[in-house]
């Protein structure tokens, strides 16, 4: 979780930051109802943080808070700096629950979109890179010109993951990546996820995805620990036990 950095005196020392991304004392509400009460957690470099919890516990809302679509109080930090999503577009990849693909754009255009509008590449170059990315994510050439509506659930998830990874982000945020998939497709997706290197993952899920740390949302709070630590926990154990 640490890296060598050069300080102002020119000495190489341990990193000034340990966590890539952290949430500190975050509280969010929907009207008068508190959804998250003073929760904190952090994600290290290249680690995987899995958020679990029962339905309605506020998992997806937590992602909306992080992605700047829901108001909150508290701190969200990126490498110890204030987290501003608009400035970090190239560092964050997001795979939405339903894919988040634009329905009137082809698969290739959808994947190429971050390259065009964040990396400011022209469309031809962006499509070329998208083509290469698609091969990496086991998407065959048939899907290239298809529209999202004609793809299966598993395929949409793959395309969405390819789109999220197209800028080689440092943090990948996944919202229920295996929901709606059958066991085979779900396992394939998890295997694909396991093959990703040098990327931190923040994943909200109900399913069995291995992680370095788990955060269980319960009663507006978060219970954090590794699988081993949470296995015997009264509440968290029920969720982690499934993994």
């Amino acid at each position, binding site marked *: 979780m640490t890296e060598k950095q050069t300080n102002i005196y020119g000495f190489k020392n341990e990193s000034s930051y340990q966590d890539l991304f952290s949430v500190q004392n975050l509280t969010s*509400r*929907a*009207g008068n109802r508190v959804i998250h009460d003073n929760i904190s957690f952090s994600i290290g470099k290249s680690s995987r943080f899995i958020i679990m919890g029962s339905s309605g516990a506020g998992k997806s809302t937590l992602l*909306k808070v992080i*992605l*700047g*679509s*829901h*108001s909150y109080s508290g701190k969200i930090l990126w490498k110890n700096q204030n987290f501003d*999503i*608009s400035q970090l*577009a190239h560092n*964050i990849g*997001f795979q*939405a*629950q*339903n*894919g*988040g*693909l*634009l*329905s*009137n*754009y082809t698969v290739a255009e959808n994947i190429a*979109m*971050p390259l*065009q*509008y*964040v990396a*400011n590449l022209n469309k031809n170059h962006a499509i070329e890179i998208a083509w290469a990315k698609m091969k990496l994510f086991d998407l065959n050439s048939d899907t290239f010109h298809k529209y999202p509506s004609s793809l299966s659930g598993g395929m949409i998830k793959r395309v969405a993951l390819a*789109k999220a990874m197209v800028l080689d982000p440092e943090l990948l945020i996944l*919202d229920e990546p295996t929901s709606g998939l059958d066991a085979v497709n779900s396992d394939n997706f998890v295997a694909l996820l396991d093959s990703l290197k040098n990327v931190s993952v923040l994943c909200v899920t109900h399913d069995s995805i291995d992680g370095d740390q788990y955060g269980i949302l319960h009663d507006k709070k978060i219970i954090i620990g590794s699988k081993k630590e949470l296995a015997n926990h009264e509440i968290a154990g029920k969720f982690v036990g499934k993994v």
Partner: protein
Amino acid sequence: MSNTLILHELWNTQNLEILINKLNQLQPDEIIIKGEITENVFCVIKIYAMQQNFLVKCNHENWQHSIYTPSPREPIPVFQYDLAEIKKIFEDNLIIKPLTKSQQIFWIDYFNRMFDLLFTQNIWVISALGFLMGILSVNETYEALAQYGAHFNTLPLWHSTTYKIISPMFVNFIISSRSCSAISASFKKIANDDESISLKLMNLPHVQLISHPFFVACILAYPLLNLISIISCQLGGVFMFMMLSRIGPLFVLHEIFRDMRLISIFDSTLRVFLSGICAGFIVSIIGFQKDKVSNADMLISTVSNTITAILISSSVVTVLYSMMRSMLIKGTL
């Protein structure tokens, strides 16, 4: 006055229906259980008690632990959305900010796609159906009035019906049936959904780059489609008049377009927009209710597609019927 129901008998799942009827008939304020009851029976009583918000007195030793003590009911939220949050979304999105170059490219690209969806893909359907509707409406009008010898008065009457009622209604049916998912999806963009978050992550303000091009495409496509619908409808009518009355095409065309003024087109276009706004309003109201967007889409698509299918089939049948009758009169058959 208190209305007490005392349950002495042996109640079980077999006579559950009798119990429910009894509860509905008597509507007791208090239920005292003295006899043996099963779990299912207790559930029914408990649900009833919760609905009425009163106490179930439970005297049987087996059910002592399950006595339901009512608590003040939590008020059911009428409006489940956070108004402050909605206000913030509107403030963030409805203020038009200058677009960067890449955002401008996206705007134009999205506008082209939306205009294609609304106009180019609908133009052939609108033209063909307009023509068939012209035939259908003239056939019906002519049938009704011809027997009183009012052949020529039917022309302006039919003509005004076409541009005032048929075409605007028609354009809305076609657009909503073929593109309603785009309409409701566009309204949905104002709320936070997965697509809008994905766009936000790419520094693309979703309302400005999705809803605005769609709105502009609507403003342009609706009047154009309406004009095409009116013209094709008139031409269909001319064709039918010629078939039914043996009047020359030039005379019919002259009669039909004699009353055509710019104000007529404007009137018709206004009707298109007003009915379009009503449709959009309904879609947005339903669409804003969480998780009902797809239901609204499906409902409107199904209704519109059904009406369009009826229009097409009835038009085709009428054309065939009229042609056969005309041929019979002329002695060709």
